[in-house]
């Protein structure tokens, strides 16, 4: 498999109009201008984002002009993709720009923003916020309501009877106009962005009379199709502390392993197929998951960091020993109601959560289960509190 074939197949969902047309252009030696856009509405990038970043990096390495577009203009419309109720929270342009800068820092773990052929950073507010009403009407005039409603999301919302603010129809149009403003040859994005990206393809064709290719990358999911990396309250961030990151990968479901290898690493497909086969034959998935965790920690950090993270993980969770480097809780109070201690140390999210943990015998003090019959425990320096399998805390009095 040569580099172009690799670019066009590995971790690629669809190519519009089709792969053959894009391959022909690439084989001719033409260098393309392409981009992916990001709505900086959150500050932490997660491994789901890495799928696109890795693809952008491949384009970059092949000498194409890659633009990292920060949607500080469109973000104001709020991308309704995947959202089933009308968005409520809106960000100021300043917040969006700041988030965008954080994005660049984080994605720098995968793409190069310096050296030869660096990825360019653009902000779409630079042209969107200059759009006058005449231009907006012109853009809107390229679409019919019927075309806008073809979007699955709108259909879902219509069926469920949730009202669609007219504002939400602006989003695909503005995203589409980005392609016109940058005069790009290709847009890359997650498969959930297909509608918006095709809106841009249409606008480029009608306003610039040229072809814009669209390449979609699959969403990072486990074998059941559940999104990985962004679960509520448990984001696997690109810049997570390495030990933490390693642990989070290890806590992914076994059916995420093969997809993660395919989309997030360069491990040859033959090898991932072998893994799949071995797991089906009963081999412990933990072995492969550890390989994955190592591979990803290395990719986003370095080999030595990954080695340390793995060692720490093995010591903590597999040897059932207390790790050497754990968080401390400093207090003057030595006698504690266990429930209150768990809340105060944030080992439990709430009082009821703490009670539940104690009742489940999930709390240990120096290796001894804290019984729910105990109304008070005494703490001394260097005591170790353990909650569940992974949370440790050293007491400092």
């Amino acid at each position: 498999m040569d580099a172009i074939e690799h670019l066009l197949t590995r971790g690629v969902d669809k190519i519009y109009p089709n792969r053959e047309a894009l391959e022909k252009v690439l084989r001719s030696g033409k260098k393309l201008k392409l981009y992916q856009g990001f709505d900086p509405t959150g500050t932490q990038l997660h491994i789901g984002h890495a799928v696109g970043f890795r693809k952008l990096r491949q384009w970059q390495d092949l000498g194409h002009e890659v633009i990292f577009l920060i949607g500080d203009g469109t973000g104001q419309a709020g991308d309704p993709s995947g959202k089933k109720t009308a968005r409520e929270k809106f960000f100021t342009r300043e917040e969006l720009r700041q988030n965008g800068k954080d994005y660049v820092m984080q994605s720098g773990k995968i793409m190069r923003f310096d050296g030869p052929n660096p990825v360019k950073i653009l902000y779409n507010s630079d042209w969107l916020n200059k759009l006058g009403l005449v231009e907006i009407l012109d853009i809107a005039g390229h679409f019919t309501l019927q075309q806008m409603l073809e979007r699955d999301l709108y259909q879902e919302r219509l069926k469920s009877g949730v009202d669609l603010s007219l504002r939400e129809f602006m989003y695909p149009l503005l995203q589409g106009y980005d392609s016109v403003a940058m005069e790009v040859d290709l847009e890359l994005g997650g498969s959930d962005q297909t509608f918006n990206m095709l809106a841009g393809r249409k606008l480029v064709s009608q306003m610039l009379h040229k072809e814009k290719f669209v390449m979609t990358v699959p969403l990072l999911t486990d074998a059941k199709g559940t999104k990985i990396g962004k679960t509520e309250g448990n984001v696997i961030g690109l810049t997570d502390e390495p030990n933490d990151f390693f642990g989070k990968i290890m806590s992914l479901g076994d059916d995420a392993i093969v997809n993660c290898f395919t989309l997030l690493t360069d491990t040859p497909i033959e090898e991932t197929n072998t893994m799949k086969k071995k797991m089906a034959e009963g081999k412990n998935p933990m072995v492969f998951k550890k390989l994955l965790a190592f591979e990803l920690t290395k990719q986003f950090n370095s080999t030595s960091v990954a080695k340390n993270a793995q060692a720490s993980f093995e010591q903590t969770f597999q040897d059932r020993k207390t790790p050497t480097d754990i968080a401390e809780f400093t207090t003057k109070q030595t006698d504690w109601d266990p429930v209150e201690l768990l809340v105060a140390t944030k080992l439990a999210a709430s009082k009821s959560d703490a009670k539940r943990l104690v009742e489940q015998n999930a709390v240990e003090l120096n290796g001894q289960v804290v019984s729910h019959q105990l109304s008070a425990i005494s703490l001394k320096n260097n005591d170790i509190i353990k909650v569940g399998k992974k949370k440790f805390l050293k007491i400092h009095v």
Partner: protein
Amino acid sequence: MNRQTERINQVLTRGVHEIIGKHTFVAMLHAGKPLRIKYGIDPTATSFHLGHTVPLRKLKEFQELGHIAVFIIGDYTAQIGDPVGKSETRTMLTLKQTQDNAKEFTHLAAKFIDIGKAEVHFQSSWYNTITLEQTIRLMATVTKEQLMRHETFRMREREGKPLGFHEMFYTLLMAFDSVAVKADIELGGPDQKFNFLVTRQVMERYGLNPEAALLLDYLPGTDGAEKMSKSANNFVGLDEDPLVQFEKIMKIRDDDIATFFDLVTNVAIDHDVHPIIAKRQLATQIVSDCHGIQTAQTVDQQFFTNHPQLKNMI
């Protein structure tokens, strides 16, 4: 009934099809405070026709009661074209085209309202500078479902005909005009009812009191159709040749004469005279409004010289 009440009643009834927000409307009128009366017209062509003078005359009546006429030239909405009743999407006009079209509009309006006391606004005075953020905010005031209650949109949807996304902006821009000028009352034809209802909602979303609206009867076409319009080619243009105007009026259907008197003159029809005489009176009045009394008298003579048989009938 004192004179003021009588005049208010006249404003509320003569040529009036329906009132939206009638209760507040009447209360506002009787409160005696000067109200802001909005009427907007789209410069889709270079001139306007007699049908447009119906709301202008109503505007004048309000001026005479001490209210403020707010005349809006829709150089943005005219780019889109009011989709109401249209089965096809119209090609958009450019801002330059609509502004070129509008050159004579103020001058023409001055023939019917006291232009010195009126406020004249081009929509471009707020839409040239509206930001994307403000536009998006405006779009957020309505839902797609609400706009799809528009009869024309439903018709297009039913018949599978394209509905340009930009056409959905028409109503919103009209509505924002009312926000921009803080209108108390708006004038328009019965086909504007949907737009006025949305406008009221949008104004409330911007923290304003919703305007009331006076839906005025349609002026019939010269061919007897329900509505005079450019597209049906059954209109009397205000800047048309006076003799042509005179001829067109003389050809209207007899049973439309009274409506014409109601809507485009200040006098009542004399039911006892021959229809030719009534039409002659009407035509003279209209030509006089557009071109002056002397021209009106000249074309009157010319017309009856050209049509001796008609002269013999009266």
